[in-house]
């Protein structure tokens, strides 16, 4: 029952209900990873489907992401203690000079809801910080966000920094943000682009499975 409640709470973007349902399920003996895979991931997948079909909009995505996050806060320490972790790790950040993080946060939420481990470096992230995070955390995917046309070239700089550090072949680099296009992704040597947060989940899956 708590699984259904958690699924509904995430789908409807109700953070308090998501927390309560998670507590209830844990008290009843549910495994943290099972709550993620059987309730939260399917709920976020349905959120993504509703967004793609035009029934949900960005605010609904955000509320669902928040609900999922509130449940994850209870689960994360338990997962760390058990050593249980998702198979795919993603490093994400908004590039240097750009303070906008709404889109990046949405993508991070959707990816976490997609069952990936997400390391969020925040906004205004210098290329060397991306390089350090890749070297240290060994992700399979790096996601770069930029809202501003003036900061967009820093995506290219970041990819060049990964190449210079000898790390480019270890990771897939995905880019997104309002001014970014698939053509721009090709021009700067990124591995993929998506124009919305929901699409990021499928994109990460496809580049990881193709690797």
């Amino acid at each position, binding site marked *: 029952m708590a699984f259904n409640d958690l699924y509904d709470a995430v789908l409807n973007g109700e953070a308090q209900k998501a927390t309560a349902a998670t507590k209830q399920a844990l008290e009843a003996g549910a495994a943290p990873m099972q709550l993620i895979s059987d309730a939260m991931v399917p709920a976020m997948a349905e959120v993504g489907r509703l967004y793609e079909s035009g029934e949900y909009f*960005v605010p*609904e995505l955000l509320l669902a992401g928040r609900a999922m996050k509130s449940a994850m806060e209870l689960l994360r320490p338990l997962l760390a203690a058990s050593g249980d972790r998702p198979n795919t790790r993603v490093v994400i950040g908004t590039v240097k000079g750009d303070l906008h993080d709404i889109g990046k946060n949405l993508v991070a939420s959707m990816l976490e809801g997609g069952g990936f481990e997400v390391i969020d470096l925040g906004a205004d992230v210098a290329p060397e910080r991306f390089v350090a995070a890749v070297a240290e955390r060994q992700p399979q995917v790096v996601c770069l966000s930029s809202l501003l*046309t003036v900061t*967009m070239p820093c995506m290219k700089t970041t990819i060049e920094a990964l190449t210079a550090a000898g790390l480019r072949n270890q990771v897939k680099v995905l880019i997104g943000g309002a001014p970014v296009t698939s*053509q*721009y992704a090709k021009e700067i040597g990124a591995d993929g682009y998506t124009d919305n947060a929901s699409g990021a989940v499928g994109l990460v899956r496809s580049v990881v499975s193709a690797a």
Partner: protein
Amino acid sequence: MPIGTDLLLHEEPEPEVARNHGPALGRVIERAARRWGTPLAIPLMDLRLEKIDLLTLAGIPEHEADRFHFDTPIAPSALAALCRRDAPIFRAGSLARNEALTWIDTRTNLIPVGMTIGPFSLMTRLLADPIGAVAQAGSGMTSEDSVQLAQQCLQMAEAAVLRSIRSQVEHGARAMMICEPAACTAFLSPRQIRAGSPVFEQFVMEPNLRLKRFLDHAGCDLIFHNCGELIDSMVEDFAQRLHPVILSLGSSRRLWEDARLVPDDVVLYGNLPTKSFYSDGAMPVEEVMRRTEELIANMRACGHPHIVGSECDVLFVPGAADAIRAKVEAMMQVAAPA
């Protein structure tokens, strides 16, 4: 068009000096209007200025303005101080914009156009999580701290925009471009609006209607700009209730279809996809010309008054100025005989 002023500003030997110097900025604005043959002297679309001015009142230095967000509810006395009608402080960018308006008004035969961010869009820049707060308001969670903070920020934002508008009118603006790019489906859920939530009315329409009343009283025309993703009811409200002289929309809209939502005395402006002009791959010159021809033909067919233009300003893209300029020239070349 703001894109023209921005392009010419970056032809200046020292663009940042010209940006903050009224007469120099006035000359750039005039040159842009002359080059592209418009009687409207449209300034830069610098939507940071009202936030900088507001935060200066709150004691936040200009260099921290971009990063700063209000994160706790504001005490009533502090809120009243930040909403003061006669707050005198304006920073360099706003002062230059005002002086440029006076320069245009007194030295040219062009129509001086003012520019401001809209109150809702300014509010979103005062909060770290504006979408969440507005979504909570839209779902009726009005007692949440985040919703109350959003309402306070909206109140401050409206006051700051009104101060900016009043000041620009006093310096000669005869039309005012209010830019509300955030009043769109990324920040306001159509699902909530269709379910009867008053969030769009309370957060977007009410403040903008009050500003429109001020402009009407001052004899200043409204040019309303929104390049965000919109649903039809939003376009209707902007066109019919705000009733601007010009309604400028983003490239996600088909203007010839929107014409049915817009009164005949509201000129539609736009809406070539200038946000992607920087990329020759995504938007080659030939595609710009094709889209311009298509837009002109469709607008002629529907018979609604229309000015060909950009969907939005395009802020400077390092290394792409020539690509952007070539497409602006191509767009204007196609439009010229029309």
